[in-house]
């Protein structure tokens, strides 16, 4: 497999996690590509317009990439905090529509602003690594950190509160859970993950334009979670990896590949409505393993 594709798969997994976080709280937010675009634009602007960060060097310094990540996280975090207070009052499909609007507004603004390069975007984003291998390392570390955070979140109090809100928001509030703040936390975390992912993607792709954060991306990233499963963080990771790789792996079948890709997205939820990876799956596997580990009592005993 191409190393470049591996990086894209890992980026897909990160975006899947970004959609997953609010969804675990029962909030269908499609804002991920918007925050992803903000992260990418921040990285593109800083690395091409601020020579002090080291764009003239042979290799763009990693420290500057980390600085871009920090700034992107700050910007997306503050924006999500402000926006979340307003849009999270909406429920279900209305929240989805409002967040699609956010993505579209950001796209149109980026398309029309002078300093973001208009329709052409920003070119020649400096490279911190000599090849895609470096990006594999960077995205792997990032993915590992985000997975670890998600895992801790799921197994502790705020994660339990999120699951409770997903199941029954009213009952959750009656248990003393501040539902507004908990949903906001999930929304802000989602924005942070998307923003930081955008920074890495901008360097990896070498150029950045408004098309990278559009409505299509909203649906594709949502498909990662629907396909992989939204009950544990492994679901979106798996969905993101697989569904990013699939169109490339299907290249041999030519033009049929988009049809096959569409069919997979359609058939997945049909046969696995909870997604491919669910907690029940682990329980079943666990029980099988236990059963095979313990020797069965001999038959025909007196």
């Amino acid at each position: 497999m191409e190393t470049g594709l591996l990086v894209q798969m890992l980026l897909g997994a990160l975006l899947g996690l970004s959609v997953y976080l609010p969804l675990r709280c029962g909030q269908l937010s499609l804002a991920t590509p918007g925050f992803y675009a903000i992260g990418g634009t921040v990285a593109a602007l800083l690395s091409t317009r601020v020579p002090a960060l080291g764009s003239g060097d042979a290799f763009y310094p990693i420290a500057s990439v980390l600085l871009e990540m920090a700034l992107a996280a700050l910007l997306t975090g503050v924006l999500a905090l402000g926006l979340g207070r307003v849009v999270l009052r909406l429920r279900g499909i209305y929240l989805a529509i409002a967040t699609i609007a956010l993505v579209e507004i950001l796209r149109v603004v980026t398309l029309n602003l002078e300093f973001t390069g208009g329709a052409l975007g920003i070119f020649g984003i400096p490279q911190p690594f000599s090849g895609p291998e470096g990006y594999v390392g960077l995205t792997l570390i990032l993915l590992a950190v985000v997975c670890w955070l998600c895992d801790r979140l799921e197994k502790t109090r705020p994660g339990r509160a999120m699951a409770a809100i997903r199941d029954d928001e009213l009952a959750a509030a009656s248990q003393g859970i501040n539902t507004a703040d908990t949903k906001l936390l999930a929304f802000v975390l989602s924005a942070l993950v998307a923003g930081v992912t955008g920074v890495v993607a901008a360097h990896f792709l070498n150029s950045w334009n408004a098309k990278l954060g559009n409505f299509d991306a909203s649906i594709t990233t949502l498909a990662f979670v629907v396909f992989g499963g939204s009950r544990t963080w492994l679901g979106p990771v798996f969905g993101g990896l697989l569904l990013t790789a699939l169109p490339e792996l299907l290249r041999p079948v030519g033009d049929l590949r988009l049809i096959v890709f569409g069919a997979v997205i359609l058939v997945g939820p049909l046969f696995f409505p909870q997604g491919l990876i669910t907690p029940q799956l682990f329980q079943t596997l666990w029980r099988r393993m236990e059963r095979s580990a313990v020797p069965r009592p001999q038959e025909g005993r007196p």
Partner: protein
Amino acid sequence: MSLLQVENVGVRFGGLQALQAVDLAVQEGEIFGLLGPNGAGKTTLFNVVSGLTAASSGSVRWRGAAIDGLSSHRIARLGIARTFQNLRLFNSLSCLDNVLVGLHQHGRQPPLAALLQTPTFRRRESQLRQQALELLSLFGLDTAAHQNAANLSYGDRRRLEMARALASRPQLLLLDEPAAGMNPSEKDDLKNLIRRVRDEFALTVLIIEHHVPLMLGLCDRLAVLNFGQRIALGSPDQVRHDPAVIEAYLGGTP
């Protein structure tokens, strides 16, 4: 001072007057019953007390302080827990997790400790699990701890909802038709369980139930609602012989 005081509370949904000038005061430690035919406004009164429905007029006082207008999670944190008439469990979570969510307000830990899984964090978490398991066993649900709440029988789900409500260590427990769907022997057990829980947890209980014999045998005092108005208030004996109550239930006295 009464624990909970409902003063002149009225609720209007469009053209429907669900509650009208209802007054009642619940004293600490008692089991207070709300009786009344369907649509009398009993659940609406629960919703007003627990902050799910705003009162159109009047006020609710908790230990003397007005609590109307507070959001429901704030009211829950004051020490008022409730169950729901139509069961509102977290169906995709295990019984244990349902009760752990009930323990939400007592499980706060510093985020950094949770991330790093410090020994203190682990100890507190295992204490919480222990408390949750104890509550489950009080309700005979310890063997089902790891089952999904959705898979339980109806009576068990009712008991799980009570366990979850008790997890927050409330001072006032609102039970909305806890015996609905239970068979006669389960109803009898429930009566003893509610008494036992009241004594063990030093609770005050406000209970809605349709089963009149159960209510007369269980409650210290009762209020009867009909068409949104309080038509009677007093001990089980007083209420049983109240002409207004007899009329509401049987339709006219000879």
